[in-house]
């Protein structure tokens, strides 16, 4: 996943909350909680980067945490909160 290009799904909205954010998918009506502000920043910046790794680096996530973040992102992908984009 780290080398792929991803973005927030078109039918998903993020609402900032004190603990991070709440993500809502208008299509499948699933509600998900992003429990860390760092994860919110990464998710929001996915679309602006060529791949997940560069989004993580741009958000200052240390390399040793990349696998953990990739796992969290995979969880979001499972409910279509984020979606793979075709590399530009």
């Amino acid at each position: 996943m780290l080398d792929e290009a991803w973005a927030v799904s078109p039918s998903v909205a993020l609402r900032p909350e004190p603990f991070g954010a709440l993500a809502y998918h208008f299509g499948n009506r699933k509600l998900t909680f992003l429990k860390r502000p760092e994860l919110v920043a990464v998710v929001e910046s996915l679309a602006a980067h060529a791949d997940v790794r560069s989004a993580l680096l741009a958000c200052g996530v240390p390399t040793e945490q990349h696998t953990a973040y990739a796992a969290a992102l995979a969880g979001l992908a499972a409910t279509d909160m984020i979606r793979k984009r075709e590399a530009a």
Partner: protein
Amino acid sequence: MTIAPERPQTGSLVEQFEYGLDAPICLTWELTYACNLACAHCLSSSGRRDPRELTTSQCEAVIDELQRMQVFYVNIGGGEPTIRPDFWHLLEYAVDHQVGVKFSTNGVRITPERARFLASTDYVDVQVSLDGATAEVNDYVRGPGSYDTALRALANLRDAGFRDAKISVVCTRQNIAQLDDFKAIADAYGATLRLTRLRPSGRGADVWDELHPLPEQQRELYDWLLANGDHVLTGDSFFHLAAYGEALPGLNLCGAGRVVCLIDPVGDVYACPFAIHDRFKAGNLLADGGFQHVWQHSELFTELRSPQTGGACTKCSAYDACRGGCMAAKFFTGLPLDGPDPECVKGNSEAGLAGARTVPAASQDHSRRTPTRNEPVMLTLQRQPPVSACAESPLAGFDPS
């Protein structure tokens, strides 16, 4: 004034929820107190429209505000919301403004044509109320003909291609034995079953003693949910049953005023749909600066988001799972809010229920004043017991000697 407590930066989601969110997650909006039925256990004592109910443009302004607050969906109820003439307009207005809708109905207006319209929209979910898997059990509390109305609505939805409607069941002493039958009905209509708890709210207070599940039925319900709960919706209904052992799927805390909230037909904002009482009224969205202001700044909600004491429950081994149960259930049975739930599975509320307690008087009642044709029969036995013999006969107590 209450000072908002310092929120910890880390902690579980449940802990974060206890401090409240910037906007509710589970917002119910009752559009009208008018209803074609007169269910014995109606949580909002509905029947008659209130002349102060929000106008169409006031409702649109509420939706605009919900959109700004990013309240992504709202549960619309009543009364019977579909009998408001502007209901279908408001439904479209909401989804056009990124506020998805799930509405609760007894099915009366879900014609084949409306069902086709609903099937053609995204972001609209329909929930049909059914409190018995047979007409006999359902109509006993919801009134004659209401079972057929609900099933006709479900059939219309299915035939129109509406997918995954919800069938919402209030669990009672009379229907706990029918859980498998409810599931079969849901399967037959391509619907999802939703089970909720009977709370002693509204007219529910009058019939709670007769309708609430017996202790052994609570256990039966818990076991059924453990086996089937993954395919059934329950909201926050049954976390008091978690004291039996394992937690159940669903929201495991009382979210009142923290993540849960009610807007009533006149714009009053309450902590929870089951807490329509002055004690839990945070304000009015017309009089107190809009919904967002009430949600974020009312004294009541600030108080509910402050750390609560568990009272007698803190000594209980199950407190972490059960958290003392439902605030509304305690309040309307006259039990202390920081003690055990009236349906405490450890039996710790028995003494409280048996002892001296004052059940709070209702602070609103929109029940119809005269009985209607389709009113459940049990009502004539249960509601408004004669205050004195005199109320039954004008000559009672008259002694000519």
